[in-house]
């Protein structure tokens, strides 16, 4: 499989980035870390806006940078689409001229997306003749998105595109990002300090702390490390499960979803049987029992194996739960009190039942 392989070491003095990573050259790679962890610097290095002193970057079979051989492809030749945190539209150009800026600089055979497609995708048709100064935050970011897409990028870089928006603006833009992920074949690196956003969009997760790589791999596998060994604290503990819709039960208004842990019943969703969905399960909604509880209102119960236990001060622990069947791809996180852990004598390797009180659909 084609990969994106990068290694960056920026000059000492000021902020320093020092990491090496390999991610799939396809799907969405989420980059997570707190502010100051080097997320934006990493993205700028990939785009070529910042030139790292000691660096190598290979996209598929194209070498974009190799300082040992003094190769540095300039930004304008790289074929990246970059969406900045602030839309950064050209104030002297209309919406139409903004989105055509990159498109007009491509030869016809380099163009992989048509103007009509991009406009339809981002819903910009009514705004084409407006100037950027008169647009709302959400509208600006849609223009920036269309502009980046019309560059026909080989790699799309998104630097917290939702961060500068207010709640309505975010709600406005999110469906476009979902759609991008679903319909567009272009690989994307998406930087965010919101784990929820990344859980929704990303397939691969890259964790950063103080300019260093903490972990990198498939989302489900890496997500728990945010709480366990990354040293990155995060308010809300949750896990992500991919599921397939099996059937709907109209009478009870429920949907039957197949996951690696077993069947999950969730409040009826609109996706059709056979479609895949992504579930988010909050850690505090997962409790633990040593036996299956048959006298409970909770229907979603799975046999699990405790794969790891991490302290969550002051009084809680995070349990890493794997399916009892021995699958190592999927993980469920549970937050329980330290007292309960001791009471149930839970140790790594123990078998138990996870009771899931609630699931929400991410996408």
């Amino acid at each position, binding site marked *: 499989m084609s990969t994106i392989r990068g290694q960056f070491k920026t000059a000492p003095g000021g902020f320093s980035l020092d990491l090496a990573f390999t991610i799939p050259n396809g799907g969405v790679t989420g980059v997570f870390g707190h502010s100051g962890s080097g997320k934006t610097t990493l993205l700028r290095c990939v785009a070529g806006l910042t030139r790292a002193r000691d660096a190598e970057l290979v996209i598929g079979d194209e070498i974009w940078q190799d300082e040992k051989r003094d190769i540095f492809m300039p930004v304008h030749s790289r074929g990246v689409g970059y969406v*900045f945190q602030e839309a950064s539209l050209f104030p002297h150009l209309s919406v139409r001229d903004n989105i055509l800026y*990159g498109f007009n600089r491509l030869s016809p055979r380099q163009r992989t997306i048509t103007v009509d497609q991009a406009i339809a995708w981002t819903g910009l048709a009514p705004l084409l003749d407006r100037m950027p100064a008169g647009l709302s935050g959400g509208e600006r970011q849609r223009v920036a998105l269309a502009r980046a897409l019309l560059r026909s990028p080989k790699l799309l870089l998104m630097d917290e595109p939702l961060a500068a928006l207010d709640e309505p603006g975010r709600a406005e833009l999110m469906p476009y990002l979902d759609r991008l992920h679903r319909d567009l074949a272009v690989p994307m690196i998406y930087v965010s300090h919101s784990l929820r956003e990344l859980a929704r969009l990303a397939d691969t997760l890259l964790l950063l702390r103080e300019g260093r790589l903490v972990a990198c791999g498939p989302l489900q596998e890496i997500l728990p490390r945010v709480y366990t060994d990354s040293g990155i604290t995060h308010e809300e503990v949750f896990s992500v499960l991919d599921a397939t819709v099996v059937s709907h039960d109209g009478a009870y208004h429920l949907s039957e979803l197949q996951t690696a842990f077993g069947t999950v019943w969730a409040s009826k969703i609109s996706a059709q049987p056979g479609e895949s969905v992504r579930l988010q399960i909050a850690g505090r909604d997962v409790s633990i029992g040593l036996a299956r509880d048959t006298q409970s209102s909770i229907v979603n119960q799975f046999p699990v194996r405790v794969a790891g236990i991490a302290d969550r001060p002051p009084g809680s622990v995070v349990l890493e739960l794997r399916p009892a069947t021995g699958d190592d791809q999927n993980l469920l996180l549970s937050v329980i009190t330290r007292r309960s852990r001791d009471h149930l004598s839970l140790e790594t390797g123990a078998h138990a039942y996870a009771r899931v009180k609630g699931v929400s659909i991410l996408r």
Partner: protein
Amino acid sequence: MPDAQAFDWTPVLLTLQLAAVSVVVLLIMGTPLAWWLARTRNRARVVVEALVAMPLVLPPTVLGFYLLFLLGPHGPVGGLWESWGGPRLVFSFPGLVIGSVLYSLPFVVQPIQNAFMAMGERPLEVAATLGANAWDRFFSIAFPMARRGVLTAATLGFAHTVGEFGVVLMIGGNIPGSTRVVSIAIYDSVEALNYPQAHILSAGMFVFSFAVFLLVYAINRRADTVSR
């Protein structure tokens, strides 16, 4: 006899011609200089900035004196120039243009430099990611975004050239039709006790200066409202 003289338009036309030529030269020279000053991290920048700003405080006679020395037929620049067959620079129209350009340089470079600095790095970075090379970025993004600064610079440069006296007197002298501009003509008229002529020219300059600043402030005000 002086009172009987008809109003002489030659100095006015000459002044406008000098200002127009100077502004064109100033924009062609000043824009790349302003671009460099706005973006370079070179330590020589402060030295160049100080040199560019010098005419703001230097007595025009000082500038004029050195130019006279440099550009004169026996000066280091003028001598070389004439040995290549160039026309005489001092006491001529080309000499006036050189003097005006140096004298008005800060009025042109500073507004353009400020405009380039105000736009920041971001629009140029975006343009680069969209496939624009350095020249393309300058002409499609930087220059159009700085256009109000350029307009202000052109207006101030024009007006300042119209209003100069000392440099012109030193390097150009007072040759009717060739170097006698309005400011010199006013001085001359007063010397010759031709007050009506001095009045007309002075009032004209007064109204002109007022109009120029009205224009500059109107440009800047519009820029403010648009950017808000």
